[in-house]
């Protein structure tokens, strides 16, 4: 039975935790390529554009890092949830798994 309500129960809470990190990962997805595609060389005087470029590169790297770590965390939490003997139930009676 499909359900849109929040799951609860032990596995349900772990599913919620996993969902939080999955949303974080999804939110950051695509930003790395946007930052990577930026050309800041013509945005100002030559002596400062190198700093702009480095800032964009560092931002790209850290967002990529966070996204990848969030994806890993979501997987781990999902695995914890899957390993639970008690299922993840929805408030309206649907099984979340």
């Amino acid at each position, binding site marked *: 039975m499909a359900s849109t309500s929040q799951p609860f129960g032990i596995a349900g809470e772990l599913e919620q935790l996993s969902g939080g990190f999955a949303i*974080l990962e999804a939110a950051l997805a695509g930003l790395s390529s946007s930052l990577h595609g930026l050309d800041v060389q*013509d945005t100002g005087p030559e002596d*400062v554009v190198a700093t702009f470029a480095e*800032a964009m590169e*560092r931002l790209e790297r850290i967002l990529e890092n*966070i996204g990848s770590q969030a994806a890993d965390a979501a997987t781990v939490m999902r695995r914890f949830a899957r390993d639970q003997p*008690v299922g993840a139930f929805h*408030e309206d*009676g649907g099984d979340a798994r």
Partner: protein
Amino acid sequence: MNPDRFLGLDPTPGDLRAADEVTKVLRSCVVALSEGRRRVEHTARPDGLWQGAHAAAIVDTLTAYAGRLRALEDAVVDFLQAWQQWRHGIAGRQDETAALVEAVTQLVDGPVDSADPRREALLRQAGALRDRHQIAADQTGAAAEALIAATTVDQEGRDLPVDLQRGLLALEAAVEQWLAESAADLRHATETISSVTKLTAVVPQLVGVAPGSDASPEALRIAAAAPGSHRLITALHRGTPERPAEELSDASFASEVRAEGALADRVRGAPHAGDLEGETA
């Protein structure tokens, strides 16, 4: 317009379209970080399901992780503001450059004289304009340096990617600990309470198979004393949508299916073990 040709230099270099593209991407970064951070914070909210002593470590690690995301988000916001100011300044100063070029052009149309004091005055203005542009560029450069620092180390000076990874590992450890300490209690409490007839209001709430109903004061009292009590109370207070009436079967004496279980239990409303299994499978 080619400022180099008329002024001997371009006092205000800066591609507005490229600057606008940077603004757009930075805004997307802020929105993404904010959305992700708020989702993590929502999980650890005070009225959330992660409550009680066993869940404290989970809430702490989630809160710390969200804090790190917030610090990064703030750093990007700070740089975005500096960048928008820079972008706005480029447009204004390039208008001034255009006016200087226009003025020099008017002089060139007349007699060409390199020693023309009017031309020298315009070139001095162009030099001053270049200096102002450079000062603004340096300020934006300083903001970029701050962003570089914020994406490299956290507020305590620790390596940020490593620190974020440690935060998530700590969260995994806290969840494992919670599973070891708390989940078993909750399962035990659920199994124990399911055998107590007067708590039929609790069991369906816990397993999530029945419409919501107000738990009796007695149910709340027993739940408060049970292992994992905060979780039971949360379940008891949870409002659930009512099941549509059409899902209930019509009462009929013509049924050939004989109900199982003791009549006394059924009169009291105690669910037969098979009923719950059937609904939760």
